[in-house]
């Protein structure tokens, strides 16, 4: 405990341990807070409780085996993680993905963005005392997870996006299911907004709280909705289009208020934009066509071919025993995850296992700005600020 002299006498600051087991830290994050009364003097985030060494494990797996590990990093955005990893490997291999597979990827990733924002909105609202929003958000998220189950057979750890395309053909009846979802979802987003946007308590808990300037946000390498709420239109889908994003029409919402409320509005607007993209993707995806690129030795052959062609069987065996070897070199690929710029850096030394796999995780780097957001604020606002950065601890610690 430290003692400081103030105008009225001796004042003591208290050190408070928030977390690692605290419901509003959304996982296991510890924040050491130095408090003067209820005001935060200093905040020091302490992470690593969920460190699983995914980057090290990737070095001991073949390129296609590591996809399942990426699912488990940011568990609210597994498809986005699959995408960035597969795109990095495809770049190393100089592999072209069929258009149809690219559109399917875009559709899945945008659905994932909506579901991730729904979890964020629900838990953020529950942290700030609005219980019912949580129930509504999870109702719609459940529908999205059902779509994923339809496509990949898995609700969360889908591993649906694979090197060279996607794992499976879209299932029977997929178009109707997504049409149905697109029909009711816009009105559901209105519903959340009607519960929160003009709610006096919500505004009181979020407006003018957790401000960060655009210069500070860039200097601290922040990305995603946090930087767009500060007025910087930095979105990888627009700036460095990947997976045919340049063929889609959508806006990048930005605001200038850069507080918790602004970041909330950005994410709600992004949900609507994602719905627009899913709509366009639905029209672009044809009923028939390839979902994987034709690259023998890299993409596993079709089951039917394996029964009739010897080469297909050999390739299948080779891919799943020794893997494939991209040429030596490095590739860095970035995509826009719901939390910001998700990057994957892969270095190959020409062997079937990567020399180094590194993930630039947006949660980790955005969390760095937390002290800047909370210092000088009341302790109750710390919870609003953690929520508004939208961290996933699985991705922070990897």
């Amino acid at each position: 405990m430290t003692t400081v002299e103030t105008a009225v006498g001796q004042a003591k600051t208290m050190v408070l341990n928030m977390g690692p087991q605290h419901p509003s830290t959304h996982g296991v994050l510890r924040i050491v807070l130095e408090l003067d009364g209820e005001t935060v003097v200093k905040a020091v985030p302490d992470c690593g409780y969920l460190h699983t060494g995914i980057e090290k494990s990737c070095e001991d797996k073949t390129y296609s085996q590591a996809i399942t590990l990426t699912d488990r990093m940011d568990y609210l955005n597994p498809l986005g993680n699959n995408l960035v990893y597969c795109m990095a490997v495809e770049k190393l291999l100089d592999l072209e993905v069929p258009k149809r597979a690219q559109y399917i990827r875009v559709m899945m990733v945008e659905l994932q963005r909506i579901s991730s924002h729904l979890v964020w909105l629900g838990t953020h609202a529950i942290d700030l005392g609005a219980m019912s929003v949580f129930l509504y958000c999870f109702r719609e998220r459940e529908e999205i997870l059902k779509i994923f189950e339809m496509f990949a057979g898995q609700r969360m750890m889908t591993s649906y996006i694979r090197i060279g395309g996607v794992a499976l053909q879209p299932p029977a009846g997929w178009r109707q299911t997504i049409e149905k979802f697109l029909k009711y979802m816009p009105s559901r987003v209105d519903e959340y907004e009607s519960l929160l946007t003009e709610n006096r308590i919500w505004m009181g808990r979020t407006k003018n709280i957790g401000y960060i300037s655009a210069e500070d946000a860039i200097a601290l390498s922040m990305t995603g909705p946090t930087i767009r709420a500060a007025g910087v239109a930095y979105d990888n889908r627009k700036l460095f289009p990947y997976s045919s994003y340049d063929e889609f029409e959508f806006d990048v919402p930005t605001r200038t208020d850069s507080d918790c409320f602004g970041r909330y509005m950005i994410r709600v607007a992004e949900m609507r934009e994602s719905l627009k993209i899913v709509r366009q993707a639905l029209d672009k995806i044809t009923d028939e066509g390839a979902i994987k690129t034709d690259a023998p030795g890299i993409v596993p052959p079709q089951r039917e071919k394996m029964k009739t062609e010897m080469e297909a069987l050999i390739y299948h065996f080779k891919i799943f025993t020794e893997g494939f070897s991209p040429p030596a070199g490095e590739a860095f690929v970035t995509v826009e995850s719901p939390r910001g710029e998700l990057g994957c850096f892969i270095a190959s030394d020409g062997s079937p296992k990567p020399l180094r796999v590194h993930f630039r995780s947006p949660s980790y780097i955005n969390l760095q700005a937390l002290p800047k957001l909370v210092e000088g604020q009341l302790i109750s606002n710390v919870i609003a600020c953690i929520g508004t950065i939208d961290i996933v601890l699985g991705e922070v610690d990897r």
Partner: protein
Amino acid sequence: MTENSNQNANVVGGRLSSVEQLRAWDRNAVAEVVEYRGETTIVVPRELLRATAARCRDDASMQFNLLTDATCLDRHPYEPRFEMVYQLVCISRREKLRLKVRLSGKDPAIDSLVPVWPGANWLEREIFDLFGIHFNDHPDLRRIVLPDDWEGYPLRRDYPVEGYRDIPVMPLGFTKTSI
């Protein structure tokens, strides 16, 4: 695998390419240029890293204002063993650039980039934690994802994937070394 930068590609979009800008500023700053799969990598001498990074950020015709990522890779047993990799982005011109510094395994130390980009703080702490690279002038060089008393640097290539420790409490005859 790699090719040196094409001399005809010096002028891009009516302006000198960033590589040429840097070369014009200080000949020694650009030790090597690697173009691979459309990505530009500039290998910078260790002593000039901070000055080069500051130049990339501040020069009006480059404006690489966002340090998006920093990481390290270990080429053990080859020397120089470590490669520091910095990914820069110029938001206004939509351009990416990678800076790379080679470090010997005998003296793995480099200038910190926190004075240039405060966001480098946690990125460098992570590299210190997992690779054991020392960053000069870093304000808060502590382990970040591993416990403070962890021994060794797990992301080095000579550190086994399973680690050095046995599984703590297992029935007799089922320790990891015996499996």
